[in-house]
Structure formats: structure tokens, C-alpha cells
């Protein structure tokens, strides 16, 4: 291959690597902490924040229009100017110049302006979130936080369902139970608005949960051990109305960050405000609004015996039918009789999943809820089934690492990385003189490529993987050493610079390939079968093996050839003895 094309390949690799690294750099270096905190919040929180912020900004702009209508828009309000220009063009009006704040603001309706500003806020946060998603993640040992492995006792589920009228086979039942356990955990954890929790199934019956940065050890146990809490409650429509009025005028100061009311006196003491949720297109909970419901539970979910999706006999529209046990039927009959024409909320884990008005008293325990499409009906059926499909969960392993401990680990890891690398490079420079520079460049590139590949696959960096990197550098030098030693030998045989370099590389090729392939086999194996720390370590080892072969065979070769053919060097500075 010609030097030019080799140089081109190297530059292309470096450029691609930089593109991979960019999100990580943006997130860890260029995003301020408060922005990180926002971006790591749940989508619901981001939405709440953007709309509250937008409302505030709109009011500020309106106030500015009233106070100083003739102020010309400043440079940092260019976004407003651009949007206003678009408005004028749409209306085919003359664009005022210079544009004053009044011109700009009055070109929008209030809703338009609010949504413009809200989108601006949201886009900014989502952009940061995107950087996070595409960047290298810090493992728990570096970021602090906690992980839990939960085992779902599926056998108990199968046993409990034996002989019941739900005629599903065991395999489906296990799968349904597992999916439900994961969903329940996800929605409960989600409610904390924790930063990017990881929840995934591991094997057949285990769930892995990771909460980076946050150590909610006091809460996580109740999250996991708590049963699916499903119940029926009465909606307090007066209090709901009172709350709506209050919330409209205090959008920013109604709730604290945990979702509790800051001023509990706005609703009666025996009520609480809960969000009403539906599933959005992605199957995620989306809050539609708030309802005030009675704290008192009208009917506990444990009375539900089965739930299914059926259809109304007359209109053929989908409906959710569920059957109550004897005691439940009695309670529900009395409750519905007392509250005809009032609202009934189905509450699961403190989220209102559905709400319906009571048409008549239902004394026989056969309940049907209507008024939704097929999809919504199925979602509600899933919610109801959590009541009777109880999946016992137990904690198999739990790890809590303090954030400050993580910071110490990062410092130690990078210190070791820097000192280890420096020692290796210094040694190479002293031992191999000029060729040592070659090795140094190769190793620094190696580290760069390793980081960017970790970033490209959004892999997690842990302390063991930093250890893996340091060791990989130590071992990657091996390829350089094999080549350099070989060149020295060829040189000692009396060959000239070009010939000994070519022979050195050619003869070393298979030694390097064989040794690295075997190491690669070991690394891949570890990364597939290992858990946690081993995995992180193995992945960086495997990546390091590939990049070290590239830097040793391509980059370092090009540097030698450049010295021979462009600088017209005759000697090789590779040792203190051989010239």
C-alpha cells in the first residue's frame, strides 16, 4: 500500500475516533452539573421543567413589552427574532427593521410563544441527554450509586396459579409474570426520577437494577419488597377543581422535587393529589393531569380474581371486565351504591391508571369499565392483573458505593494510568532511543482509540477496565518490542535501513498476530461469560488488542517508512549498540 493511502487510512481512523469521543467530551467536560442533573431526570420531569420555565419567560417578555416596547432585540435574542421573522413572512407582512421587542412578541399568540420557548428549553435538555446516551458511562465503582440483582420466584407464581381458571400454559405464565415484575419495578423506580436507571432482565428469572450516582438504599428495599399496590379510590371532584385553580397560578411552587405538595392545605386533609397517566406511543407512562382522590381505599386490589378484555354487547366497543371475590363484591356493591355518578380512580403504585364514573350500583362482583380503545383496554387489563399475579421478589446481591468513594476511585485510576503510561514511555525512549518516539506515538494513539471505541459502543468504564487499559498498554508495547528487536537483528546482519525495517516487520508479523489472537480469545471469552468487573476488564483488553495491532503494524510502520523515504535517513536510532 502506498504511503499516501496508509496515511489517509490512519487519519480517517483518527477522525472517526474523534467523532465517537465527541459526545463523551461534550457530556463530561462541556455540560455543567445542573444541566446534567436536569438531563438525567425523567422525561416527565424535563417536560414539567420546560413548561414552567416557558411560562415564566413568557410573562417576563410580556412585562418587558409593557415596560419598554421600543427596545430593539439584542443579539442573544436572535432565536426570537428569527421566529418572529418567520411569522411576518407567513402573514405576508413587512418585516419591521429594526425589530423591537413589541413587534416580535405581538407577532405570536400566547400559546405559540409558550410552545416556542418550551421547545427551546426541552431541545437543549434533550440534546444534553443525547450526549449522555452516546457517551462512555462510568461504572458504579467510579460514579457511586447502587446495583441490585433481584430474583423473581417464578415457581411460586406458577404454583399459585395452579387450578385457577386462567387457562394459560406455564411457559406463558412465567413470561408474563417476569415481564410484569420488570414493568412494576421500572415504574416504581421511575417515580423517583432517578438519573437514568438501568433495569434489565438477566437470565430467565433475574432482574438487574443499577442506579448510578444515587444511593437510595433506604428506599430501594421497599421498592422491591413492596407488593404491587393496586386499589380503587373515590375521586373528590371539588378538591380536584380547587387544586387545578391553585396549580394554574402556582405552576412552579406546587410540588417539591419528590412530588409532594409544598402547601398541603389546598386540598382537604383526607385527600391526596395523584397524577393521571396513560401510555404514550412508546408504552411509557405519560401524565395527563392531576386528580384529587380520597386517601381512604374504597376497595383493595387483592379482591380482584381475574381481569380480561371483552367487548360491549350492544356497541361491540372494547371494555375491561373483572371479577371480584365474594367479600370484594360486597364492599364494591355498597361503595358503588353510595357513590352513583361520582368518579372512581384505579390507582396502581400511586399513579392513577384509569378513572371512570359510577353509573349504577354493582352488587354482583362482575365489573365492566368502558370508554376506551382496544389498546387502552389492554393496558388497563395489565394493570388489573398485577393485583392477582403476585411475583415474589428477593434481593440476591446488592452493592452500594458512595459518590465520594467513586471520586477517589477515579482519581486513583487515572493516577495509575498516567504514571504507568509515563513509566512505560520513558523506558521505551531510553531503551530504543529514536524508535522509542515511534512506540510512544503508537501507545498514545492506542489509548485514544481505546477510549473512543468504549465511547462508540457506550460501554461502561469501571476501575477494572482502567486497570485493563493500563495493562493493555503494557502488553501492547510488546508488539513494538517484537518488531524493534527484529529490526535490530536484521540490522546486525548488515542490512541497510529500508531492508532491515521491511524484514523486521515481515518476520514479526505472525508472531504478533498469533500472540494477539490468543490474547483476544481469552479476552472475548471473559467478556462474554464474566460478570461485572471481569466484563469491563475483558472488554478493554479486547479493544486494546485490536488497536495495538493496528498501531504497531500500520502507524509505526508508516513512521519508519516516512523516515526512510521522505527524510532519507540512512541509520536507525533504535538501540545504544546497533546504529
Amino acid at each position: 500500500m502506498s504511503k499516501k493511502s496508509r496515511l489517509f487510512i490512519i487519519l480517517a481512523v483518527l477522525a472517526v475516533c474523534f467523532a465517537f469521543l465527541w459526545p463523551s467530551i461534550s457530556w463530561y467536560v462541556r455540560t455543567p452539573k445542573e444541566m446534567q442533573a436536569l438531563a438525567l431526570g425523567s422525561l416527565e420531569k424535563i417536560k414539567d421543567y420546560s413548561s414552567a420555565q416557558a411560562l415564566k419567560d413568557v410573562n417576563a417578555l410580556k412585562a418587558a413589552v409593557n415596560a419598554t416596547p421600543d427596545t430593539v432585540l439584542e443579539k442573544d435574542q436572535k432565536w426570537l427574532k428569527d421566529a418572529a421573522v418567520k411569522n411576518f413572512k407567513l402573514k405576508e407582512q413587512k418585516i419591521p427593521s429594526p425589530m423591537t421587542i413589541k413587534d416580535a412578541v405581538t407577532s405570536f399568540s400566547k400559546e405559540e410563544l409558550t410552545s416556542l420557548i418550551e421547545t427551546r428549553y426541552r431541545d437543549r435538555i434533550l440534546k444534553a441527554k443525547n450526549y449522555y446516551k452516546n457517551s462512555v458511562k462510568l461504572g458504579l465503582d467510579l460514579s457511586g450509586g447502587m446495583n441490585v440483582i433481584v430474583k423473581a420466584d417464578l415457581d411460586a407464581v406458577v404454583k399459585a396459579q395452579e387450578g385457577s381458571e386462567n387457562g394459560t400454559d406455564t411457559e406463558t405464565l412465567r413470561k408474563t409474570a417476569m415481564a410484569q415484575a420488570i414493568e412494576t419495578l421500572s415504574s416504581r423506580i421511575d417515580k423517583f426520577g432517578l438519573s437514568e436507571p438501568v433495569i434489565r432482565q438477566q437470565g430467565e428469572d433475574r432482574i438487574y437494577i443499577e442506579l448510578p450516582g444515587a444511593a437510595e438504599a433506604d428506599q430501594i428495599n421497599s421498592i422491591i419488597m413492596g407488593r404491587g399496590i393496586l386499589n380503587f379510590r373515590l375521586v373528590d371532584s371539588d378538591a380536584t377543581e380547587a387544586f387545578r385553580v391553585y396549580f394554574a397560578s402556582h405552576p412552579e411552587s406546587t410540588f417539591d422535587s419528590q412530588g409532594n405538595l409544598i402547601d398541603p392545605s389546598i386540598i382537604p386533609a383526607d385527600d391526596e393529589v395523584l397524577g393521571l397517566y396513560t401510555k404514550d406511543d412508546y408504552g411509557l407512562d405519560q401524565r395527563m393531569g392531576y386528580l384529587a382522590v380520597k386517601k381512604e381505599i374504597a376497595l383493595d386490589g387483592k379482591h380482584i380474581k381475574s381481569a380480561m378484555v371483552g367487548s360491549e354487547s350492544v356497541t361491540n366497543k372494547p371494555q375491561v371486565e373483572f371479577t371480584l371475590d365474594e367479600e370484594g363484591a360486597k364492599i364494591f356493591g355498597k361503595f358503588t351504591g353510595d357513590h352513583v355518578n361520582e368518579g372512581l380512580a384505579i390507582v396502581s403504585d400511586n399513579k392513577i391508571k384509569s378513572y371512570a364514573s359510577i353509573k349504577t350500583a354493582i352488587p354482583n362482583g362482575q365489573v365492566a369499565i368502558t370508554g376506551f380503545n382496544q389498546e387502552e383496554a389492554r393496558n388497563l387489563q395489565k394493570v388489573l392483573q398485577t393485583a392477582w399475579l403476585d411475583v415474589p421478589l428477593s434481593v440476591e446481591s446488592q452493592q452500594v458505593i458512595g459518590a465520594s468513594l467513586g471520586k477517589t476511585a477515579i482519581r486513583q485510576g487515572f493516577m495509575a494510568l498516567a504514571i504507568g503510561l509515563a513509566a512505560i514511555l520513558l523506558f521505551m525512549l531510553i531503551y530504543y532511543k529514536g524508535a522509542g518516539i515511534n512506540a510512544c506515538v503508537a501507545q498514545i494513539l492506542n489509548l485514544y482509540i481505546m477510549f473512543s471505541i468504549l465511547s462508540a459502543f457506550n460501554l461502561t468504564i469501571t476501575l477494572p477496565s482502567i486497570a485493563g487499559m493500563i495493562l493493555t498498554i503494557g502488553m501492547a508495547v510488546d508488539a513494538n518490542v517484537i518488531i524493534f528487536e527484529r529490526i535490530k537483528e536484521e540490522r546486525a546482519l548488515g542490512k541497510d535501513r529500508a531492508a532491515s525495517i521491511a524484514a523486521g516487520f515481515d518476520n514479526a508479523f505472525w508472531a504478533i498476530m498469533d500472540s494477539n489472537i490468543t490474547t483476544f480469545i481469552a479476552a472475548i471469552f471473559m467478556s462474554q461469560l464474566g460478570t461485572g468487573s471481569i466484563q469491563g476488564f475483558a472488554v478493554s483488553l479486547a479493544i486494546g488488542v485490536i488497536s495495538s495491532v493496528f498501531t504497531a503494524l500500520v502507524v509505526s510502520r508508516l513512521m519508519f517508512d516516512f523516515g526512510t523515504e521522505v527524510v532519507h535517513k540512512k541509520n536507525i536510532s533504535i538501540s545504544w549498540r546497533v546504529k
Partner: protein
Amino acid sequence: MKKTIKFSKAFLGCAIFSALLIISGIVGLCTKGINFGIDFKPGLIEEVRIAPTAMELTYNGSAQVTANTSRTSFELVISGVGADNETKTFAYGQYPTISKLAEGLNGVEGITANVLNSGDVDSYGIYTNNAVSAVLSATPFRVYVINDTGSADVATVDQVRNALGAFSGVNVKALGTDTDPDFQIRVGVTDSEDTNKSLQEDITSSLQKAFGVDNVAIVKTDYVGSQFSQSLVSKSIWLVVATMVLIWLYATIRFHWDFALGSIMALCHDTLIMFTFIVWTQMEFTTTTLAAILTIVGYSINATVVILDRVRENMKTMNTKKFNDILDKSLTDTLSRSLITTITTMFASVALYIFTTGSIKDFALALTVGLVSGCYSSMYISSGFISLMRRHWEPGENANRVRPKKTTAHTNVSEIPAAE
């Protein structure tokens, strides 16, 4: 021409030496056993610090305020609805005592910092309970600081041990300095039932009873249930064996079966030497230690393959009657490479050993031992084995035995790609 070193003379001695070492390891294994870490032995490890609460923080606004501590500063990250988004940093240099720091924190809207005990304590060395959420709310968030003025206040290992006397098989170790101790508490669980939550709660409440509710901060907890560690043990053994089999297969394809077997011998040797080291030092055996062993497997095969590659090459070019001559020549040829690579890798592992703590430190130590063993075994053990297998070797049969290799022939000058 370099003088060929007679490595082959030492083959037998080295084999005996290694065998003795490994036997001593087996003896150690029988008498002392392996000090299994939490990954392999079900139980709970908790690291706690015992010191008075220096300050309590509460927050009553609508934003999300997270408290962070670092070595040099205390940080509040404020985000969300109803506040300006910002990070407020309180450098200890600027706020040298707890009361000064509290004053600064009180200046933030919605935050109340309540100083308990003496406010004159140094802000450096401040820490928090890691088992509770760092998001501030109406529930007080406690900030602790070691009171290093009077060592009488500092809890001792014996006090902690006494406080936990009710638990069977509890093991308490002091980490850190005398004036600023961390206590590592380890309790094993035997039955398969889930006791995580209750165990943790019991330990915390016992400690709180002994040292005061406000004075116990949890730094780190680690819990492994018995079923989980069971599956890990079988998985680990499988992992090591399968890795070796795969490497052996590759080496058989690339070289010859006795070469491959020789390199596997070296791998087993290194694994056993590391076990011997782990047994005799009673180092904690965790998954990280397992990673060290697997790394050495990868490293040692690397070293062996480079030597075998040279042996294969020299078999083509050398004119000799004895296979040991070929081995000696190859080992001499690759000696400087073997040493330099070991040295550079050791730079890395020693740097890890010096700068890290905990399981990575053990990992680095085990690795350093493995590196020495790997270098030694690739030179003496695998070659020794091959020498034994080929003691009746005759020149000329090598051509059939060893697959020809593209690059073994000396490259001519004319083969170099022409310059542009």
C-alpha cells in the same frame, strides 16, 4: 552473533522447582484454604464510619437540590422547576470550619443548615451517609465530620465488635487511620432465604444503639445471596477451563500439538503459581482476582507463542542434530523481548499497585506475581515440555511436522514495496 545461552540445561531444575512450589500451594490449600471474597461467599460486607453529625441540611423549595462532597469542596447542584439552575461550590479553603460552611449554605434559598455539636471543626474530611439519598428534602440530610481533636471520641474496633456481639460469625476490621477509622463489617449468611434487608437493618440499629442514632454513616455495602455466589463459582471454573481449551485449539492449528500442549502446560503452571501465592498470602479471592488469573492466561500465552514462533522459524534454518539447540537459540533470540515486555507490563501493574486501594490493589499484586511466573514459564516450562516430547527428535522430520509458514523465509530486499 550473540552467544547462545544454554537454557535447556536448566529445564529439569526448573520443573522440579515449579513442582515444589505448586505442591506447597496444594498443601497451603489443604491447611489454610482460600480466603473467598464476598462474590464467592454469600454474606454482607458493610463499611461504616462512626462520628458525630456535624450539620443537618434541609430544603423546602420545589427544585431538586443534590449535595455532593469532594476532597476540596462541598457542592449543591440545583436543578428543576422553580429555581435558577446552578451548581454552588463551597470550597473548604473559603469555608474552613463547619460553622462557616453552614453560614454559606444558609445563604442559598430554601436551604437550612443546622450546626450540631461544635462548629469549629475543620471542613476538610467532611463526609455523608451513602446509604441515603443525597437529594435534599424536609427530612434532615446529615453531614458528618471526624472530630480529630480528641482521640477519646474515636470508636475502636473492639467497641464495634462488642456492639455487634449478637451476630454470629461477624468479622470487624478497621481500615484507614487510627484517628479516622472506617470499619469493615462482614457477616456471612448460610441459609438461602433472603435476609438482606433485615440483616442490614439489624446491623445498623445495633450500631446506632451503641454509638447514637446520629453518629453512624454507611460508606459502602455489598451483599451477595447464596444462590448468586453458587452460580458464580461454577461459572468461573467453566470460564478458566473453556478459555484454556480454546487457546489450545488455536495453538494446535497454528503450531503442532506438542507445542500447543507445552503452552497449555505453561498456562496451567501460571494459574497454579498464582493460586499458591493467593493461598499463602491469604489474599481475598474475588472476581477481580479471577480476572487477574485470566489476564495472566492471556499474557503468558502471548509470551509462549512468540517463543514458539521463533522455534518454528529456527527449525527451518538451523543445521543441528539436537532439538535442544534449536530451543536454546530461539530462547536466546527472544530473550530481550521476553524481558522488556515483562518489564513494561510490570510498570503498569506496579503503578496500579501503588496508586489504588482495595480489590484492585490485590489484583495488581496477583498480576505482578503472574507476570514473573508467565515470563519464567514461557521460557522454561513450555520449552522444557517440548524438549521432553522431542528428545528422540531427528532433523528432517520437521518439514512434515510443522506446517509451513509464509513469512519464515528471509525476506529479500527486492520484496520491499517500491517507494513512490
